[in-house]
């Protein structure tokens, strides 16, 4: 095991750092965006909301590179977003960290929203009613009731999002261009190693990835279980 990591090159380490950053940012952004979105979706019954719920899942059905290509068109200098940014004197987003971050956020959106939505629905109205009669406003309810009660849903959402972002490379490759330190995340690097038939390196990185992911997931799920045992719902 120790040798395993001794042989990692600086490029590998850079990719690891970058991957962690991307996964962390994506997960955080998606929890921030996904929570209100899922909340809103859970409340009403209108057709519009059903439509939006369906739309949220759509990025999933496209092959990642194809999605990446469309995003490249959108975020690149000729695309709606990219050209607007350029007119504002900013850079377009293709081949930048921000670009792959946007790509990851869009691509993993359903993995955040769906479990949260289901979790919110199942909680039912009673705990919120109770909190309201005890003087808790909407935001207060979110933090003091929804978050702790739907912890399981948040954990599922966060781990699926994190893991999915970690493994995804199609969108990132197309949109990011594999720039070391900027867009060359671990999945791209492992892919490159595998394609180049540098199997030793690919195996080593894969194994490292699997082990660390396992450790993290084990701890997260273990803690969640402990909580559940202490305060069963």
């Amino acid at each position: 095991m120790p040798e395993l990591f001794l042989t990692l090159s600086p490029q590998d380490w850079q990719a690891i750092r970058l991957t962690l950053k991307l996964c962390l940012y994506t997960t955080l952004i998606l929890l921030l965006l996904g929570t209100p979105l899922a909340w809103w979706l859970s409340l009403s019954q209108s057709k519009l909301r059903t439509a939006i719920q369906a739309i949220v899942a759509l990025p999933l059905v496209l092959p990642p590179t194809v999605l990446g290509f469309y995003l490249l068109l959108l975020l690149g200098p000729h695309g709606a977003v990219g050209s607007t940014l350029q007119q504002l004197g900013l850079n377009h987003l293709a081949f930048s960290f921000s670009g792959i971050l946007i790509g990851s956020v869009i691509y993993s959106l359903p993995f955040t929203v769906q479990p949260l939505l289901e979790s919110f629905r199942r909680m039912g109205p009673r705990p919120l009613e109770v909190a309201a009669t005890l003087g808790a406003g909407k935001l207060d309810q979110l933090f003091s009731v929804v978050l702790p009660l739907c912890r399981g849903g948040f954990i599922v959402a966060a781990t699926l999002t994190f893991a999915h972002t970690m493994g995804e490379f199609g969108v990132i490759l197309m949109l990011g261009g594999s720039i070391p330190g900027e867009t060359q995340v671990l999945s791209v690097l492992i892919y490159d190693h595998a394609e180049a038939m540098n199997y030793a390196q690919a195996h080593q990185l894969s194994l490292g990835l699997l082990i660390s992911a396992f450790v993290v997931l084990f701890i997260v799920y273990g803690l969640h279980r402990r909580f559940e045992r202490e305060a069963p719902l």
Partner: protein
Amino acid sequence: YASDKLTIAAASDLRYALDDVIALFHQQQPAAEVRVIYGSSGKLSTQIRHGAPYDLFFSADIQFAEQLYAEGHALSQPQLYALGRIVLWSPRQNMAGIELAQLTELNFRRLAIAQPAHAPYGLRAKEALQAVGVWPAVEAKLVYGENIAQTAQMAQSGGADIAIIALALAKFPELANSSKRASHGYQLIPAELHQPLSQAYVITRHGANNNTAQQFTAFMTDKDVLAIMQAYGFELPVSARQGEQE
């Protein structure tokens, strides 16, 4: 048993040329069923190693074919049939007349090449950039495509300002006409600046008894085929040129 159904695995850079070749082959052998699967040479050779039902393997780099042969996954010696060329291409401007060495003078943010680690065209692009001494200057501006087709897409979308791609792609109408503003002249990169992109094929173990495979490899030396290859920007190797002259 002998089968008339032929499955070809081919490197992505052959995509358009090989399609035409197969169409031609089909005219001559209407009964033959030929299907082709494009992919990166590395991936295809890995698949062949692990039992892929491909009869013929057209590699973008002869090394992959030689390796398969050495390992016993291919029966025939790799057969060189064409040489690939790389060009400078831009979605923004006509690159005709702009030498590789002039890249340092151009104002651009991103230069797309295929991933040198595993894509033959990427490796050749890198060699050429190093040969003219601009590599250190442009390295920070490089973005890498998974393969040469994706590299072209990166540039086509405008995300990358310039790309080094296969001549075969630059000649393809989709790319040549991809922007309305300029007709996209490309600049051929001299072959001396990089190792040759030796396009070679082998018959795999799976295709050992495949008659159509034999017929198709024989057909590859047909002069009409060579013409197609040339039309798509491939150069013919010395051996083939001799054949042409006959």
